[in-house]
């Protein structure tokens, strides 16, 4: 907090954008986050004016090859012998429009992405000169581009389409034969390349080499015949390849998973999180008519920048699986939520201290774990969750493959040693001390509490979304929701609390777990006051120490989340 207060004022520079004086920071973070002189393109962005571009990407090294961001600028004059810059008659500094040195009078553009601003420069982002340059670059890009928008997956989110509408010409002058290049190239196991659609911006090459650390892509041939390629005989296959599809400004790189599945303009976009590991990459779910079609990374510089891994991105198919649990089941077969909750509450109210144990999941939300812990406290119940480990990588993938282990720890469901109390729970069942087991989202038969042990219980209450050996033994089976079907928060491995929102309706009887738990906690403990997710989160933030110290509120989380100290 202290450093936030003493932060020095940002040094600024004044430039003119389309005749309007704007004050912009002197430096702006480059792709690696290091401050560098603010560029013309960035200055225009600060001023709310978009400079069209293909090759420039804020998270990639600048190469300046597409020339789409050419802008006509006027520079202040050099100081004369008196040390003063040349002035107009009205006392304002004189500026000199840039022109070709060998052809005075013909305007010369600078590339916005790589040209640093100079105090007093005029950036003519929308002047006829600038528009003419853009039009010319677009014309060049389009002469060899196939007119296959109707069958192109990128249509609707294509920069070539968008800029053609904004800056292009209605007709092409091109009277020659187009260059033909390879189409439907299997670049790797998850990527298909259409080299004819490619504008050769090299974003994919730079991403692979400089961000993913796999210098796998390059350009073959020369001139207009240039084409993207992986090294001969080596497929483009690392865990980050699908990011190249996101950053491809056109339809050259398409995802084998999403290709031809859905027109993008039909997709509803919902802010969500990836649940593949403890990193908590921010995502956008693309869905239509209650079916999820894709994940895309959502920029969050504190977590995942603009990227996500391929494994995480493709880890959504289970959400729409046919065998999802959709029926609420009690000991006498299918039932309804009012009766089931009444019966469970009645049973739990009578349960003695120490006779109940809870196995929660670190795939559950902070709110759900908080409520489970409230329930647990009522019976002094043993609680734990199940660890999931994998190998961490150099970029985004965390060793912890649960999305919310930190949340489980902070809410008190588990300890630093996740799963260390599972053996004690098993022992309690063996000894007959534990008579009721509540399981959320885990197949405990895989974690030391086998089907035979489960048979010893008087009552097994299970909430899950897919069938397994534990759900089959349940006395009460409560169908739950995936994260795409409810709202809530996760706390990632670094202690960032982030929220996700609801993209899909749950199927059948399934209900968000926090709603079910809220009801149970109310019935069993008499506690009240959190019947909305906002209220519940704020209540939790007030009671869980780490959250309280950080001063979290639901509204305060915003889209990017907030850090808690671990």
């Amino acid at each position, binding site marked *: 907090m202290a450093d936030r207060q003493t932060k020095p004022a940002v040094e600024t520079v004044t430039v003119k954008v389309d005749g309007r004086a704007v004050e912009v920071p002197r430096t702006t973070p480059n792709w690696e986050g290091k401050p560098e002189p603010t560029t013309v393109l960035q200055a225009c962005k600060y001023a709310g004016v978009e400079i069209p571009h293909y090759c420039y990407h804020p998270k990639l090294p*600048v*190469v*300046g*090859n*597409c*020339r*789409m961001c*050419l802008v006509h600028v006027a520079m202040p004059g050099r100081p004369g012998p008196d040390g003063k810059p040349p002035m107009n008659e009205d006392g304002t500094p004189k500026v000199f429009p840039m022109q*070709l040195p*060998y*052809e005075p009078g*013909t305007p*010369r*553009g600078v*590339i916005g992405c*790589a*040209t*640093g601003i100079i105090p007093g420069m005029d950036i003519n982002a929308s002047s006829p000169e600038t528009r003419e*340059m853009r039009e*010319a*670059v677009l*014309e*060049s*890009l389009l*002469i*060899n581009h196939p007119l296959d928008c109707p069958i192109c997956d990128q249509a609707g989110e294509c920069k070539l389409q968008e800029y053609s509408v904004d800056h292009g010409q209605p007709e092409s*002058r*091109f*009277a*020659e*034969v187009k*260059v033909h290049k390879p189409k439907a190239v299997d670049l790797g196991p998850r990527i298909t390349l259409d080299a004819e659609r490619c*504008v*050769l911006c090299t974003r994919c090459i730079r991403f692979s080499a400089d961000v993913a650390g796999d210098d796998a892509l*390059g*350009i073959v*041939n*020369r*001139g*207009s*015949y*240039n084409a993207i390629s992986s090294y001969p005989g080596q497929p483009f296959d690392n865990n980050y390849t699908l990011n190249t599809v996101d950053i491809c400004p056109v339809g050259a790189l398409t995802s084998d998973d999403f290709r031809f599945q859905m027109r993008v303009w039909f997709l509803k976009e919902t802010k969500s999180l990836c649940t593949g590991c403890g990193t908590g990459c921010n995502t956008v779910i693309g869905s239509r008519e209650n079916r999820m079609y894709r994940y895309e990374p959502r920029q969050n510089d504190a977590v995942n920048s603009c990227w996500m891994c391929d494994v995480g991105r493709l880890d959504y198919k289970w959400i729409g699986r046919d065998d999802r649990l959709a029926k609420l089941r009690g000991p006498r077969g299918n039932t309804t939520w009012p009766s089931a909750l009444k019966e469970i509450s009645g049973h739990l109210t009578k349960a003695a201290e120490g006779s109940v144990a809870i196995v929660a999941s670190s795939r559950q939300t902070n709110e759900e774990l908080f409520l489970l812990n409230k329930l647990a406290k009522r019976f002094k119940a043993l609680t734990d969750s199940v660890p999931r480990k994998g190998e961490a990588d150099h970029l985004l993938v965390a060793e912890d493959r649960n999305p919310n282990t930190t949340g489980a720890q902070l809410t008190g469901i588990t300890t630093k040693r996740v799963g260390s109390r599972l053996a004690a729970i098993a022992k309690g069942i063996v000894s007959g001390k534990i008579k009721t087991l509540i399981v959320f989202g885990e197949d405990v038969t895989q974690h030391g509490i086998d089907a035979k042990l489960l048979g010893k219980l008087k009552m097994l209450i299970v909430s899950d979304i897919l069938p397994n050996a534990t759900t089959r033994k349940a006395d009460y089976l409560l169908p739950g929701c995936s994260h795409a079907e409810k709202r809530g928060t996760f706390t990632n491995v670094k202690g960032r609390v982030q929220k996700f929102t609801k993209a899909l309706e749950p199927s059948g009887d399934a209900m968000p777990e926090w709603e079910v738990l809220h009801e149970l906690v109310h019935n069993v403990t008499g506690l009240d006051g959190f019947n909305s997710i906002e209220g519940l989160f704020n209540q939790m933030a007030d009671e869980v120490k780490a959250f309280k110290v950080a001063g979290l509120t639901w509204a305060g989380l915003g889209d990017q989340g907030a850090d808690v100290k671990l």
Partner: protein
Amino acid sequence: MILACYANDVKLAYIYIRGEFPEGARILNRAIDDARASGFLGKGICGTKYNLEIHVHRGAGAYICGEETGLIESLEGKRPYPRIKPPYFPAALGLYMCPTIVNNVETLCNVRHVMEMGGDEYASLGTAVNTGTRIVSLSGQVKRPGYYEIEVGKATLGELIFHRNFGQGLLDGRKLRAIIPGGSSSKVFRAGEKFNIKSKDKWGKVIGQKLGLLDIPYDFDTLMKCGSMSGSSAIIVMDDSVDIVEALGNLSDFYAHESCGQCTPCREGSLWMAKALKRMRSGEARKGDADYLRHIAHNIQGRTICAFGEACAWPVLSFVDKFRDDFEQRGAEDEARLAKRNREAAAS
């Protein structure tokens, strides 16, 4: 080169020689071995504490490697895509992002003579502001094409073509049509062109001058004032047997083939121009093709990462501007022939 390195306290130098010169590379390597054996290279050169290594690096046959930042990329083992300037000026961020001096052979060859003669005497060669000598490569339809070393500005274009010491005139019975004065990327001159130029004399006084094409002294400034450049000092002479559209098509094919393809205007434009010219050369020219070509070339020059954009645009711009009648005539003829053929086809 060793002298230049010594002057700049450079410890490591490369000679980048294009891949098409295997014999040249062998000779260079032999010379370097000789120099090392004689104590001019390696550690403690000539008994001093100065160390220098020179390596010969052979290119792989791309014209763009002549662009200094493209050359640096190539030397680093990458595709020779020229770098954007700013920020990658070689003197600040060159080879392996270290300060680097890139000079061509011609420049370095002068060092020896400057050292030998002394700066003042060397500067007394040539004209007041364009000093020294240049080796002119004279090609095209002259009797004696070849390489001629001249004092800069001490021979005119006319002398270079006609003088008995140089080209010895056009082939018998031919008339001059055009001259490309400084390599194929320089703007073409049309025979009979006249120029009104202004220049400053030794005392800074501005003097007006009328020059015929053949009276242009072969120096940097005058050629630039006449709208072209001395560039690589390769003069291409074209006589009246040359088809201008064919000649430009030939040049454009070269530039389309050698464009590295990094930045959009040149990548797409160079091949576009070459394709248009190919169409025109195969009997399908259109009346508007002169403007069509001009439009494409205009969209390249000044908008690319490196000067290759100008190199491929300038021949087209200058050929079209100076020989517009050739292009328009061809368009009219082809369109008329096509119309006639269509009429005949319709009639039958």
